[in-house]
């Protein structure tokens, strides 16, 4: 049987050459993402800004949004949004946080229930008061910072500090771009988004670590190879794995995106962008080349010029036999 071969054996792409393009592009995109975050903002869900979210389903026929809008508008509850949600008889109602503390939120729900009456099924009602929303936002932010910190410390112990720093820069880059994506697409930013960001962090690091592991191995084995060549060989060697793994993750996410329902739609869409699009790119084009700038391996190539002589790597791609370097 002929097996599917997505990446040919013994690829020799010169990934390092792209760093002169990839670094400026990433810098530009990151700045754009940060600008989006500040000027376009995130579509914060009620988890973080408080308020009420109701998902209702009309019992007979498609929902009459205009009628509902007048019914709720008459209640004078401040800002509110109505939106079709997945099906024509499914409506998502968002009501901004009511002034007057936690009790006022509860009264708002009661009023909407009375206004819409028995014509609809209440599939979901979520009310987050002001005290909780501030806390959730704080916890979410602390969580992200803690995760990055903990992973940094772990990598620092397992690798050299340059690797830890490189991985962190790469992953903050991932998170920044993903946040930019969320701002651009106006996806709901709620607790599950924090979960998505943390998972992207985990996955993208996973990828980076696999390449770093290989780089470390190569550093130990080939003492004379120039740094860009060594990185190129490492990335090429793990390329097939990277592609296959990301395809399987993409397949899993695709299944979730198509069949997982509306409730986790924004979650999976964010993951798709973060893990598959950004994460893969980052580990190859950012996390690896950045090691050069962070001075990995500079000690062993004292005096060697940045642009090395024609690579001796061509023959050295295949590890020599009988060098069972077990750690």
């Amino acid at each position: 049987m002929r097996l599917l071969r997505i990446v040919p054996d013994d690829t020799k792409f010169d990934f390092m050459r792209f760093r002169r393009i990839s670094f400026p592009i990433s810098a530009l995109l990151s700045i754009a993402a940060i600008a989006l975050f500040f000027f376009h903002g995130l579509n914060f869900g009620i988890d973080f800004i408080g308020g009420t979210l109701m998902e209702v389903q009309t019992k007979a026929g498609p929902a009459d949004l205009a009628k509902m809008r007048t019914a709720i508008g008459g209640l004078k509850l401040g800002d509110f949004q109505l939106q079709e949600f997945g099906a024509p008889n499914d409506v998502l109602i968002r009501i901004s946080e009511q002034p007057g503390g936690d009790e006022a939120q509860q009264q708002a729900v009661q009023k909407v229930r009375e206004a819409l009456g028995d014509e609809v099924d209440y599939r979901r009602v979520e009310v987050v008061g002001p005290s909780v929303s501030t806390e959730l936002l704080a916890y979410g932010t602390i969580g992200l910072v803690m995760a990055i910190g903990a992973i940094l410390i772990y990598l620092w112990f397992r690798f050299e500090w340059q690797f830890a720093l490189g991985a962190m820069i790469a992953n903050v880059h991932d998170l920044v771009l993903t946040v930019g994506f969320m701002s651009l697409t106006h996806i709901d930013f709620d607790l599950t988004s924090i979960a998505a960001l943390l998972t992207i962090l985990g996955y993208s690091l996973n990828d980076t670590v696999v390449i770093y592991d290989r780089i470390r191995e190569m550093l130990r084995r080939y003492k004379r190879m120039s740094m860009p060549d060594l990185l190129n060989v490492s990335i090429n060697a793990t390329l097939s794995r990277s592609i296959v793994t990301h395809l399987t993750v993409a397949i899993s996410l695709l299944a979730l995106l198509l069949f997982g329902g509306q409730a986790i739609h924004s979650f999976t869409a964010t993951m798709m962008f973060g893990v598959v699009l950004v994460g893969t790119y980052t580990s190859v084009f950012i996390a690896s080349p950045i090691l050069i700038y962070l001075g990995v391996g500079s000690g062993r190539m004292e005096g060697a010029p940045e642009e090395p002589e024609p690579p001796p790597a061509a023959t050295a791609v295949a590890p020599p036999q009988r060098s069972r370097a077990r750690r």
Partner: protein
Amino acid sequence: MLFFTRWKAAAILLTAFFVCLCAVPNFFPESTVKRWPSWAQRHIVLGLDLQGGSHLLLQVDAGAVRKERLQSLNDDVLRVLRQARIQFTGRAIVGNAVQVHITRDTDVDNALAKLGELSTPLAGILGASGQRSIDVTANAGVITLTPTDAALTDRIRQAVDQSIQIIERRVNELGLVEPTIQREGIDRILVQVPGLQDPSRLKEILGKTAKLDFRMVDQSMTAEQAAESRAPQDSEVLDGEGGAKYLIEKRVLVSGADLVDAQPGFDQRTSEPIVSFRFNSSGARKFAEATQANVGKPFAIVLDNKVISAPVIREPILGGSGQISGNFTVQSANDLAILLRAGALPAPLTIIEERTVGPGLGQDSITAGEHAAYAGAALVIVFMFATYGLFGLFANIAVAVNIAMIFGVLSLLSATLTLPGIAGIVLTVGIAVDSNVLIYERIREEVRGGRSAINAIDAGFSRALATILDSNITTFIAAAVLFYIGTGPVRGFAVTLGIGILTSLFTAFTLTRLIMAYWVRMWRPRTVPI
């Protein structure tokens, strides 16, 4: 890497088998599982987002607790100083403290000593904590008593404990199935009721303090006069039904704490819904005395500072029981009876978060999750087989065992499965496959490097496993943080992701290797089929 002793292979297979076995109770109806021995009953709990239900987060009103504490401290100061016959002026609550001015300078030391006795040492986790309940200071004849923060926190904790008991009684009286009521942090209570679709009534019942008092109506002036000018010092103006106002004495004749029973019923003459109640013996005596002394005068039944009714006492009530009437519906009479039986909350509770999912959405989510899981698994299986052939089949076996083991571990922990949790499982398929991909790609590389088949497999495993460990630990750290900070559904995601990483590490390090070892021993391959 490819050699397993017989007992080691057996241990691996048995572990995998038993963990998978733990998932079995999930596939039988609950009624069947109930008849099994208790150790076999552990199963996965569906989260509220999947089975539908209400999640309410309540917060004890710390301000009310503090105010009540100050009020009672104020009363204590009065009692202590009177007992000690110390003259004082200007006793008042000022900010977070009670201040009193001692008239004669010679009394100040004595007063300090007596008032100091009000301050008690606080218990810590291990014996005395070294902190006291009240700070007592004197400044030029003015003594200030400030309850310490530690004492207030203690109070709030107690209030939460009491409230939990009372909430349990109230919720049980409503006949709700399997509610979970637990403390969250210092001043919060989480109430989760599976299957509850409309929590309006529950919220109403939980939101009432249910502090019931019997007090006299002050007839020295009308309520309108009192509202316009100033109410007498020992009376206050309270609202009644339909905008009515009453001037009620502050002194409480009998309080709801003296009630032993309350039942809804109907008035025999008017057939209106009423609530009948019975006092305990001390309550009955107090009520008898009060009604004897005040025949012909109106008294008021006050619930949470609102007058329910203010009937005139026609004759002394000596039997210790009575009834409350006042514009009730059948349901509101029933609710009041429940509240009175369960007792008053020590402080008001506010609902600060509500998440309710209807059963329809829950079922839809389960279906969506199942479809996504099947589709994802099917696609991955086909893809792996297409890419790695026989080895892909091995990987697929590992993934299947993995998923079964995740369900097993979740059951062992009686963990909660949420929709994001299902997403976590689907993603785990990706992780589990990744371990195999890493191993296979490494094997291929070793083959290209010129090793013999068996040699390459051996080297591939030993090198890939180190990488697998490193890369999975980072993802695991992210999952752990998520578990720590997350609530509800998000925590469910962290749980399945974390468990998934552990099980996929297990299968990568043991099961996949074992399968490969057997295959190598059986077929003695000369080339690697990938």
